[in-house]
C-alpha cells in the first residue's frame, strides 16, 4: 500500500499557502512572518509535509528491551505502536486496524505477542501480520486477502539507542538523514550505554511546536534573561556570559546545536571516563570533557539538553530529551525523558534524576519560564496585527566560521547566534513548498 498523506488537491507550492509563505518569508535576510506560528493552514500542511516525511524519533531502546515489549506513541498526530517483535526487531505500526480503523492497542506500554482489535477481533502478530479473523469463512468466504492486511508499517531504524520511523518511502537512510549530527549524538548518547529513568513525562502546552524546537536548536541567547532566576539559586553556574561561550553548530538538514564550553570542572561522572574513552574518537573525547552544557534539536521536533549544575555543593549533570508533538496550531504535547549512563554509580544516577526533574521536566525551573514565553508568543501570533510582524533572526549573519573546533558541520564561535534557527526554517520551508 502506498501511503499518501494529506489532501492531494491542497499540497504544492503554487497554492494560497505557498504564495503567503513566498511573499513573507526571507530567511537569508533573517525574517520570518509571525503567522507561521499560529495558523491552521500552516499547521495542517506541516502534518503531511514535515511529519509525514521526516524521520521522527519514537522511543529509546531501553524502553523496550525484551521481545514483545511495546510502547504506544504518535508520529506527529498519527498513533503508532513501537514494538520489539519476537525476532527482536523493532517495528513501528500505525495503531489502526485494517478492517475499520480501531486502535488495536490501547495501553501506553506493555508486552504482547499479539494485538487484538476490540471491535471485531481481528488479531495481528507483533510483527504486523493479520493472523486471526473471527468466523472468517462465514463472514468472508474466500475473498479476504490477509497478506495485504498487515498493520501499516512505517520505515524504522535505530541509531544511538533512539528508534526513528518515517512514512516516506523515498526518505534517505537514517544515517544520511542525521548526517553530521551523528558526531554530536555520539557525545550525547554514544559516549556510554544510556538508559531512560522511566516512561516520559507528558503534558500539553498552548504553544506552537516550532517555537520550542527552534529554541532547542538555536537559542542560547535567551538563557541570560529568561533563566535569570537560576544563577541566583545556583542552578546555572558561571559569570554573566555563561550562555555565550562555546560553539554554535548547524549539522545539516535543519539539525542545530550549541555547545557550552569550556567548563571549569568535569560535569560527568568520573567513573565513566574510561568507557567514554573506549567509545569515542579522541577528538570527541577531548571535546566532551570540556563541555559544560549543550542544547540541540534534531529536526524536526526532538530537543536534547545536556545540563549541569552544582546541587547541594556537588557537580551533577544529566541529558534530557523533549519531543514536541504537534497538537494544533497553538498546542503541543511534550514527552520528556531524562537519561543517564547505565553504568554510572547509583548515587550519581539518583542525583542526575533529581537534577533532570528540577530543571527540565514539567515542573522544571528552566522549562517553566521557557514555556511562559512560548505560550504568549503563540497567542500573539494568532492575532491579525501581530501576524503582520516579521520576526528577527539576524544574529550571526555574516559571522566567520570557527576554525578551532574538531567537529563537523557549520561551526561558529559564540553561541549568541541565530544561524541554527535560520537553518531550521530553511529546511522547514523547503519541505513545506516541496511538490510531491
Amino acid at each position: 500500500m502506498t501511503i499518501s498523506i494529506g489532501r492531494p488537491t491542497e499540497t504544492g507550492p503554487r497554492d494560497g499557502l505557498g504564495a503567503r509563505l513566498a511573499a513573507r518569508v526571507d530567511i537569508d535576510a533573517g525574517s520570518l512572518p509571525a503567522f507561521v506560528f499560529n495558523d491552521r493552514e500552516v499547521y495542517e500542511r506541516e502534518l503531511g509535509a514535515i511529519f509525514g516525511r521526516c524521520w521522527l524519533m519514537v522511543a529509546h531502546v531501553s524502553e523496550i528491551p525484551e521481545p514483545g515489549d511495546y510502547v504506544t506513541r504518535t508520529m506527529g498526530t498519527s498513533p503508532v505502536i513501537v514494538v520489539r517483535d519476537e525476532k527482536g526487531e523493532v517495528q513501528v505500526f500505525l495503531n489502526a486496524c485494517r478492517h475499520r480503523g480501531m486502535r488495536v492497542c490501547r495501553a501506553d506500554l506493555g508486552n504482547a505477542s499479539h494485538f487484538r482489535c476490540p471491535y471485531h477481533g481481528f488479531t495481528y502478530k507483533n510483527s504486523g501480520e493479520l493472523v486471526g479473523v473471527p468466523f472468517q469463512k462465514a463472514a468472508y468466504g474466500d475473498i479476504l486477502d490477509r497478506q495485504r492486511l498487515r498493520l501499516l508499517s512505517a520505515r524504522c531504524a535505530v541509531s544511538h539507542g533512539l528508534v526513528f520511523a518515517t512514512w516516506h518511502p523515498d526518505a534517505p537512510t537514517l544515517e544520511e538523514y542525521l548526517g553530521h549530527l551523528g558526531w554530536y549524538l555520539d557525545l550525547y548518547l554514544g559516549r556510554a550505554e544510556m538508559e531512560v529513568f522511566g516512561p516520559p513525562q507528558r503534558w500539553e502546552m498552548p504553544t506552537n511546536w516550532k517555537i520550542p524546537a527552534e529554541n532547542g536548536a538555536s537559542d542560547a541567547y535567551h538563557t541570560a534573561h529568561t533563566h535569570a532566576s537560576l544563577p541566583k539559586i545556583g542552578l546555572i553556574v558561571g559569570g554573566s556570559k555563561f550562555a555565550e561561550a562555546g560553539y554554535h553548530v548547524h549539522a545539516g538538514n535543519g539539525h542545530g546545536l550549541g555547545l557550552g564550553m569550556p567548563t571549569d570542572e568535569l560535569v560527568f561522572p568520573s567513573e565513566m571516563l574510561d568507557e567514554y574513552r573506549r567509545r569515542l574518537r579522541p577528538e570527541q573525547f577531548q571535546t566532551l570533557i570540556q563541555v559544560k552544557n549543550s542544547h540541540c534539536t534534531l529536526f524536526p521536533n526532538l530537543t536534547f539538553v545536556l545540563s549541569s549544575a552544582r546541587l547541594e555543593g556537588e557537580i551533577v549533570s544529566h541529558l534530557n530529551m523533549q519531543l514536541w508533538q504537534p497538537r494544533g496550531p497553538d498546542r503541543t504535547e511534550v514527552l520528556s525523558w531524562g537519561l543517564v549512563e547505565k553504568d554510572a554509580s547509583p548515587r550519581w544516577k539518583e542525583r542526575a534524576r533529581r537534577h533532570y526533574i528540577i530543571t527540565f521536566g514539567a515542573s522544571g525551573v528552566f522549562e517553566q519560564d521557557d514555556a511562559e514565553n512560548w505560550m504568549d508568543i503563540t497567542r500573539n501570533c494568532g492575532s491579525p496585527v501581530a501576524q503582520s510582524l516579521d520576526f528577527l533572526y539576524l544574529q550571526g549573519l555574516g559571522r566567520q566560521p570557527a576554525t578551532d573546533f574538531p567537529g563537523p558541520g557549520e561551526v561558529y564561535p559564540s553561541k549568541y547566534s541565530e544561524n541554527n534557527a535560520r537553518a531550521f526554517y530553511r529546511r522547514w520551508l523547503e519541505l513545506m513548498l516541496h511538490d510531491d
Partner: protein
Amino acid sequence: MTTELATDPRLWIEVHAWLDHEAELLDEGRFQEWLELITEDVCYGMPVRLTRERGAADSHRGNQYFLENAATLRLRVERLATEFAWAEDPPSRTRRFVTNIRVQPDPEGVRVRSYLLVFRNRGDDAGQEWLSCERRDLLRPTPAGLRLARREIWIDQSIVGSRNLAIFL
C-alpha cells in the same frame, strides 16, 4: 446509630484544618510559611501515570513530575522570590479544593490521604486549567504541630492537562 468511629474526630478535624491551612498558604503565595510545614527529611514526589490494562501497574516512580527533598523545595521557593520567575510572575490565580480526607494513625505519624482539585488561571487567559489528584501524605507530630514528612501526588492524567507544574500540589 452510635457505632464506633474508625477515626478519632479530633484528629480528623485537626488534619482537616492542617490541609486547609496549607492550601491557604499556597493559594496566597505564602511559600516561606509553607516551607515551615515540612520536615527536614521530607520526601515529595509525583510519579508518572500510565494507561495499562486493568490490574497492571499504572504509575512509574522512575520518572516523576516532582521528586523533591527539603533542599530542592527551598530552591524552588527561593526562585519564586526572585524577580525573574516569569512562569509565576505575574502569579497564577490558584484554588486548591481539598476533599475526601482520610486519616490513619500510624507509628510513624499520621497517614493522610486526600483528594485535591486545583483550579488555575493566568493572565488574561479566559480558559481554565484543572488538575485532579490524590495526595498520600505522612504528617509527623512535632512540638510545633503536624509537619509534612512525605507526600506522593497521584495525578489523574497520563498527559498532564496543565501548561507546566510551576505550582506546588
